[in-house]
């Protein structure tokens, strides 16, 4: 497998490929994808600039994040130096969006003489529950090489259309796209449906992740680490790293009208945004505030309380403007003014 570029869903899978002594260079596609802006009509490099701004903060200076995106993009553009490019991904939303972005890039390229292949799985014998490639051993990874499938023009067309729909400022484009024939990328439809559930719900203005976090706290899962573990156990096609989970908790805990309270500090403190000893971090206890209880009972609109200002792909959700909301009953998005 000489002269191969392996693009992986992150550093974990990349390290496994190296440990499995699979020949070739490794490029981990570091981006959480499902949150933060991907405005319409921009190139890979233009999106990377915006993503770097989105991810940068006190723990990650803009210059460092920008550099890593630029180095990543340069490496992707070096695909011409390789005989084969193999994508290593799994079924979840994060990975399916990464596949869309990468294949959309290849859709516009001259691929004459290049082999493009995909390893994408949603299960592995003996690994239950299967969450992702990161759970596998180097031997497992090696055994996946023979199942790689060639990526053809049809895959590239579907991915290109999907990426355009994801970046549209009007999410009905994505809803329409989900109804089209996506069977050649078999995990895409379920993943994108889960993406739609990340819109604020019609019931209370919280997205599915936030609702689950509050529900777990209400049911006694008050430790932030345990809350993350239980959350992940409840998911099948959604992957969120622990930092992102803790940022969601911060959003609901540290605003002017908090839905969560945290002892002993009142505020929820989490690395890398706050300098806190791991022991102290793990000892924090969450509880629902009165407002949190009201939101869970559908009596208050969380979008307004947490001053929602969030991007999902190309859609900018702002609490002060009419919002696209997810109706769990009809499984459709609706644009609404404030909730009654």
């Amino acid at each position, binding site marked *: 497998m000489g002269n191969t570029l392996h693009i992986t869903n992150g550093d974990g899978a990349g390290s496994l490929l190296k440990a499995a002594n699979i020949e070739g*260079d*490794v490029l981990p596609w570091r981006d959480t994808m499902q949150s933060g802006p991907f405005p319409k009509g921009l190139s890979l490099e233009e999106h990377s600039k915006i993503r770097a701004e989105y991810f940068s903060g006190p723990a990650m200076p803009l210059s*460092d994040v920008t550099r*890593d995106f*630029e*180095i990543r993009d340069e490496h992707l*553009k*070096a695909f011409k130096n390789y005989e084969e490019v193999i994508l290593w991904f799994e079924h979840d939303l994060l990975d399916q969006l990464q596949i869309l972005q990468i294949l959309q890039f290849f859709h516009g390229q001259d691929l004459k003489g290049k082999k493009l292949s995909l390893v994408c799985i949603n299960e592995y014998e003996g690994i239950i529950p299967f969450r992702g490639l990161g759970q596998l051993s180097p031997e497992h990874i090696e055994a996946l090489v023979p199942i790689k499938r060639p990526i053809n023009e049809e895959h590239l067309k579907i991915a290109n259309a999907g990426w355009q729909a994801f970046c549209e400022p009007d999410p009905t484009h994505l809803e329409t796209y989900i109804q089209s024939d996506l069977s050649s990328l078999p995990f895409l439809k379920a993943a994108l449906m889960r993406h739609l559930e990340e819109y604020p719900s019609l019931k209370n203005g919280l997205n599915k992740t936030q609702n689950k976090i509050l529900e777990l706290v209400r049911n006694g899962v008050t430790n932030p680490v345990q809350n993350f573990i239980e959350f992940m156990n409840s998911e099948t096609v959604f992957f969120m790293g622990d930092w992102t989970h803790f940022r969601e908790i911060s959003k609901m805990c540290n605003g002017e009208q908090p839905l969560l309270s945290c002892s002993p500090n009142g505020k929820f403190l989490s690395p*890398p945004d706050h*300098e806190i000893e791991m022991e102290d971090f793990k000892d924090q206890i969450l509880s629902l505030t009165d407002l949190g209880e009201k939101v869970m009972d559908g009596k208050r609109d969380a979008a307004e309380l947490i001053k929602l200002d969030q991007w999902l792909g190309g859609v900018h959700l702002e609490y002060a403007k009419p919002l696209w909301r997810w109706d769990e009953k009809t499984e459709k998005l609706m644009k609404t003014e404030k909730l009654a």
Partner: protein
Amino acid sequence: MNTLPEFDPLFHQPVRTRLSILLYVKGESFADLKSKLSITDGNLDAHLKKLSAAGFIESEMVIGDTQKSTRPYTVYELSPSGKKAFKKYLKALEKILNLTQKR
């Protein structure tokens, strides 16, 4: 008469030669590279991108590993194809050295 070897211009540049030596040996953070090479951020940035544009850089995100800091940082290293190309460059240098020593 021996023909003179060709040098890969990607490596045959004062900063990139030294940078490649460091990245060939082991993974290094941006801060460590900058300090060891005594160059500016912008200069190091440009050289890393140049190597990456050939597919010669691999990187790994490391979560802060000290008790006090949990800040993530990136470690860079020559990729397998980068190491292979750099070895070829070293062979060319060796050949030149051998030629001059024979005189």
